[in-house]
């Protein structure tokens, strides 16, 4: 991991709420793996105090060499609103890359099915590229509340990855939940499949019941409020099974954000 003050290279708005911040940072670009994240300062001062966790969206290349990265941000609160006002040339404190990454399917012949909701799509175009390079057939299911919340479809299209979209309000793609489209697709599959998901917790849980009902491997990328991003504050924990058959807390920033879903306890064991 690197702690840097980076100059913001470019800002690009995708719609009224979502934007991409691009940075020149060769060391981070070389080290970053799909699914990893960074801690970005939203301001130079102490308001807001804590940095914001953001997934690595793109690795930017020049003559085939990694030279930078970008993050895809949805404006939701104080920090992301400040980020939406950043301009090229601004200096931003960045720590990363952090945490675990998505691993390609263990079965070399498996198809990879990526399921994402809202800004949870951010880490997947990079991962899709790695999957295609490793020879895996790859397919994306994108869900969102409205058409404004459907992200990354063009990225997948550019990679030649087939996309199925669903919105809660029917403003684009299937009317309804992306998990319904997923179930329908999986019913017609007979080869090996590995599932990957990132998005709102109810979505990931629903994807996990679909995956476990079919005995499919499933990796999830989790979110939690984070103070440090490096594993020292113990704020971002999630209950997970341990080797001895009990459970213990795992740090989303360190052992995660990407977990093998079968190790997670969606219900807190004390409930």
């Amino acid at each position, binding site marked *: *991991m690197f*702690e840097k003050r980076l100059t913001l290279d470019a800002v690009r708005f995708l719609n009224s709420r979502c934007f991409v911040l691009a940075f020149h940072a060769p060391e981070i670009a070389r080290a970053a793996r799909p699914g990893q994240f960074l801690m970005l*300062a939203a301001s130079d001062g*102490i*308001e*807001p*105090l*804590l*940095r914001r966790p953001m997934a690595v969206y793109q690795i930017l290349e020049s003559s085939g060499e990694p030279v930078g990265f970008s993050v895809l941000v949805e404006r939701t609160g104080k920090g992301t609103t400040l980020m939406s006002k950043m301009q090229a040339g601004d200096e931003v*404190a960045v*720590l990363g890359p952090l945490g675990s990454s998505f691993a390609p399917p263990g079965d070399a012949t498996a198809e990879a099915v990526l399921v994402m909701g809202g800004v949870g799509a951010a880490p997947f175009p990079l991962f899709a590229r790695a999957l295609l390079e490793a020879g895996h057939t790859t397919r994306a299911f994108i869900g969102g509340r409205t058409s404004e919340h459907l992200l990354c479809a063009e990225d997948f299209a550019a990679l030649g990855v087939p996309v199925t979209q669903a919105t809660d309000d029917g403003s684009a793609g299937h009317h309804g939940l992306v998990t319904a489209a997923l179930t329908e697709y999986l019913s017609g599959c007979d080869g090996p499949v590995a599932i990957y998901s990132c998005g709102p917790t109810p979505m990931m849980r629903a994807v996990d019941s679909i995956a476990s009902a079919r005995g499919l491997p499933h990796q999830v990328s989790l979110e*939690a*409020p*984070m*103070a*440090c991003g*490096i*594993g*020292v*504050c*113990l*704020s*971002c*924990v*999630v209950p997970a099974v341990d080797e001895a058959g009990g459970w*213990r*807390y795992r740090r989303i920033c*360190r052992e995660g954000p990407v977990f093998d879903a079968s190790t997670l306890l969606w219900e*807190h064991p*004390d409930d």
Partner: protein
Amino acid sequence: MTERRPADLGVDVGSLRLKNPIMLASGTVGYGEEIGELVDLSELGGIVVKGLSLEPVTGNRPQRIAETPGGMLNSIGLQNVGVEAFVRDKLPNLRRYDTRVIANIWGKTVQDYAAVAARLDQAEGVHALELNVSCPNIKEGGISFGTDPKQLHEVTAAARAATSKPLWVKLAPGVTDIGLIARAAEEGGADALSAINTIRGMMVNVESRAPMLSTVFGGYSGPGLLPIALYLLFEIRKATPLPLIGIGGINELEHVLQFMIVGACAVQIGTANFYDPTFSSRVVDELAQWCRNHEIDSLAELVGSLRLPRQG
């Protein structure tokens, strides 16, 4: 022209010499493993590890933090690996560094504190113990050790009897008369006092109308703590001659200097490690530069040099 030699930043916390007054505060740097990837711990005066108990502790259920104006709340619940695993798995890595390792310890009973202190007394590479007394004494109706002079005296004396290593007591801010508390720790046998720990606070989510922390309230830390901590240190300074360690809200050199002028011989950086993880090593350099600029040869010149205004 002769080049002035680099300022000597060494300070003495009682019998324990630190190479400089900058330490990392308990609970904000784990056991040094991860922060060691960003900061060379050998450049610092010391590191205080996450509060250790006799047995491993799972900690509170999430949500464990909330950001606030000027700071943050936490209710980690003292999650830690336990003293045995610390000595076995974590201490060897810390011993690679040329820095002071201070073990922060806590318990639910006086006997717990004494047992953890006795275990660490035997652990090579632990240079001092710091008692976190901001936890409830389950045998005395759950009143926090740090708020009752009698209990604080008892727990300090018990830890004192269990170790010959330097013993620091870390005071909690939520008390009526901090001077009284400080004297109780002194009389119990403390070698130094650190102040302050977090102060209780809460935040509410207006949409769900639920508290932001699963435990309802938690410990407030960060920039907003600075003036409170400085004032309490000032009161403690008046009450006891013990060496003091300033903690609370530090994120600039200026804050370090303020603590030292009020009377701290060393300081600990806490929450700043989260939002500015390399601040601690930067501030060591800034302090050296400041001393050169001000022609200060020893930090002892600074400690307790507060000039009070004429009253009346």
